[in-house]
């Protein structure tokens, strides 16, 4: 696995927001690596920083956000150092993104075709006819019937599933190396979700690209991903290959998460739960962010922030594994 080439390396990324109530540390030091051709899942509860991470990679954050620290290497280029112009050349070309809300992510006053022309216009030198041809082909690839007609229709004329297909084709038009999908199916029905997931699997295989799949649904992760990163309160708490994560989760949070799924419990009986709720990013506890909810909490958790302990394939941010896994690097101990 290690021989494989990393296409994206996020190192100690910290993305903060300036707000009227002070600085919000939405992403507080995360490390992610995506290898060529693999699908990396990111799971975590609402507000833990999944979207901010992906938007940081895309450089699409609003003006109130800033990268306080860290690097994002894509193809050995540090994206945090790129100018907007250079970043623009990557977006929609080398890296693409699919968003959660197919209903609002398409502009209601432009036709599908007009919107899909945009990446081609920016990144490819094609004639108008060629562009149209290309788009229609792409629409067919994602399984849109009547592609020749749909191209001239407006988003509101399409159903949610269709729109998500359009979004996927938008992302795929320039055959990017990396596709980031931020909860691509959360807004969809299960039957439609199954269609879309199937489609994404096929496309990925066909185009040999890498993918980051963000979701809160462990089932989707199990179905789609090669490796998983679990986030909690702006940090990575655990990362592991997919089977390892489901079979031997290390972090108490991951364990709790898996245990609380209805399937893992007897019907009609009380579910196992993680008590409490996710802390607000501006109100993090002093030690481990998960400590207040952790069933295995001990003294050290309350006072010291754990670093990310790395095993051969698995990492975990928990003091329990201080001895089992290799210690985090020095800098991580200091800064948090």
């Amino acid at each position, binding site marked *: 696995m290690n021989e494989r080439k990393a296409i994206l390396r996020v190192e100690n990324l910290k993305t903060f927001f300036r707000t009227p109530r002070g600085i919000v540390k939405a992403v507080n030091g995360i490390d992610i690596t995506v290898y060529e051709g693999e699908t990396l899942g990111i799971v975590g509860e609402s507000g833990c920083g999944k979207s901010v991470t992906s938007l940081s990679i895309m450089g699409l954050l609003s003006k109130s956000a800033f990268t306080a620290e860290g690097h994002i290497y894509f193809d050995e280029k540090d994206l945090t150092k790129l100018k907007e112009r250079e970043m623009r050349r990557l977006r929609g070309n080398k890296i693409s993104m699919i968003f959660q809300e197919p209903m609002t992510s398409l502009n209601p006053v432009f036709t599908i075709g007009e919107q899909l022309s945009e990446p081609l216009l920016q990144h490819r030198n094609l004639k108008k006819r060629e562009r149209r041809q290309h788009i229609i082909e792409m629409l067919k690839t994602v399984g849109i019937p009547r592609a020749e007609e749909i191209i001239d229709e407006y988003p509101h004329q399409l159903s949610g599933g269709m729109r998500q297909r359009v979004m996927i084709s938008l992302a795929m038009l320039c055959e990017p190396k990396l596709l980031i999908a931020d909860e691509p199916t959360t807004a969809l*029905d299960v*039957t439609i979700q199954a269609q879309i997931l199937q489609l994404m699997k096929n496309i990925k295989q066909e185009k040999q690209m890498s993918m980051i799949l963000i979701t809160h*649904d462990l089932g989707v992760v199990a179905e789609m991903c090669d490796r998983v990163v679990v986030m909690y309160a702006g940090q990575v708490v655990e990362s592991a290959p997919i089977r390892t994560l489901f079979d031997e989760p290390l972090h108490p949070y991951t364990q709790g998460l898996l245990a609380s799924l209805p399937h893992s419990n007897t019907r009609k009986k009380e579910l196992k739960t993680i008590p409490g709720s996710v802390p607000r990013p501006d109100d993090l506890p002093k030690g481990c962010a998960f400590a207040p909810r952790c069933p295995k909490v001990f003294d050290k958790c309350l006072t010291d922030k754990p670093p990310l302990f790395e095993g051969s394939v698995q990492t975990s941010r928990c003091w329990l594994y201080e001895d089992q896994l290799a210690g985090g690097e020095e800098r991580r101990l200091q800064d948090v």
Partner: protein
Amino acid sequence: MSEYEQSKDSQPIVEAPAAPLLEVQELKKYYSIDQGWFKKNLEVKAVDGISFSVYKGETFGLVGESGCGKSTAGRTILKLNDPTAGGILFEGEDISKLGYGDMRKLRRKLQMVFQDPYASLNPKKTIRQILTEPLRVHNLFTPKERIQKAIEILEIVGLSEYHLNRYPHEFSGGQRQRIGIARAVILQPELIIADEPVSALDVSIQSQVINLLLKLQKEFQLTYIFISHDLGVIEHITDRVAVMYLGKVVELATTEEIFSDPKHPYTKALLSSVPISHPDEQKERIILSGDVPSAVKPPQGCSFHPRCPDCMEICKTKEPVTVQLSPTQSVSCHLYPKE
């Protein structure tokens, strides 16, 4: 010792008694959409003749895809919408024709929990006001006692007196949903309709709220109609399930039957679409083609036929009737012809 604690001792009634608590008969709710003065209004057949009974103490599940009329059914049963046709018998009394005022008194026994924990609490009211209002409008207790009740119920749902004077925006989603549940439970109703009470919540919070619902059911012998699109949750919590498609109930059975032996092709497809729960799990997928059709122009015949993998000629023209396959299972599909 409070009333709530007293009731803890009594055993929940699991056995279905003969007379249903609630009986829904051929309930219809059509919305009309204004198309201008000179065109006939469009009709959305959001709920198109559904029938089922709910027995005391059970949890009755309603599943189906978005837009199939689950919420409309729930709201119409509680008469938050006026039904277009059909009967709603509550404790044997038809409430479908009651006016706002008469219905008001009955509402003590019929409550609702909403999906969106952010929209379902008035942002301008404190928790105290939110929780005492039901008691106040039904003239229960003295003002002092009401506050006492509010504190008790808060503790039951896992919050405390300390939260009494706060506003909803000071709570997390999970906490708000607990408050919404507390508001529904404080009147000690007979029936609670919970419209996707957990689907807006995070996984870890979802399980807390489900536990709370289970606990309350035990304590107060509540009857639930539980609406959800999440089959995992439905499987866990319900006793019987009705599967809806385009305003109709296509299959109704006990939860075990539905999950172990689904009959309707739609139910089958629905179950097969659920993501696997472990990477090693192998699943036979029935991937449905096409989208959910709109309720404005439902297809001829069986409304599921354009997506149905087992579609036959008859399905395209003739609407199937409901067939009772076993005492507990019924289905509307031409695959199961009536003898």
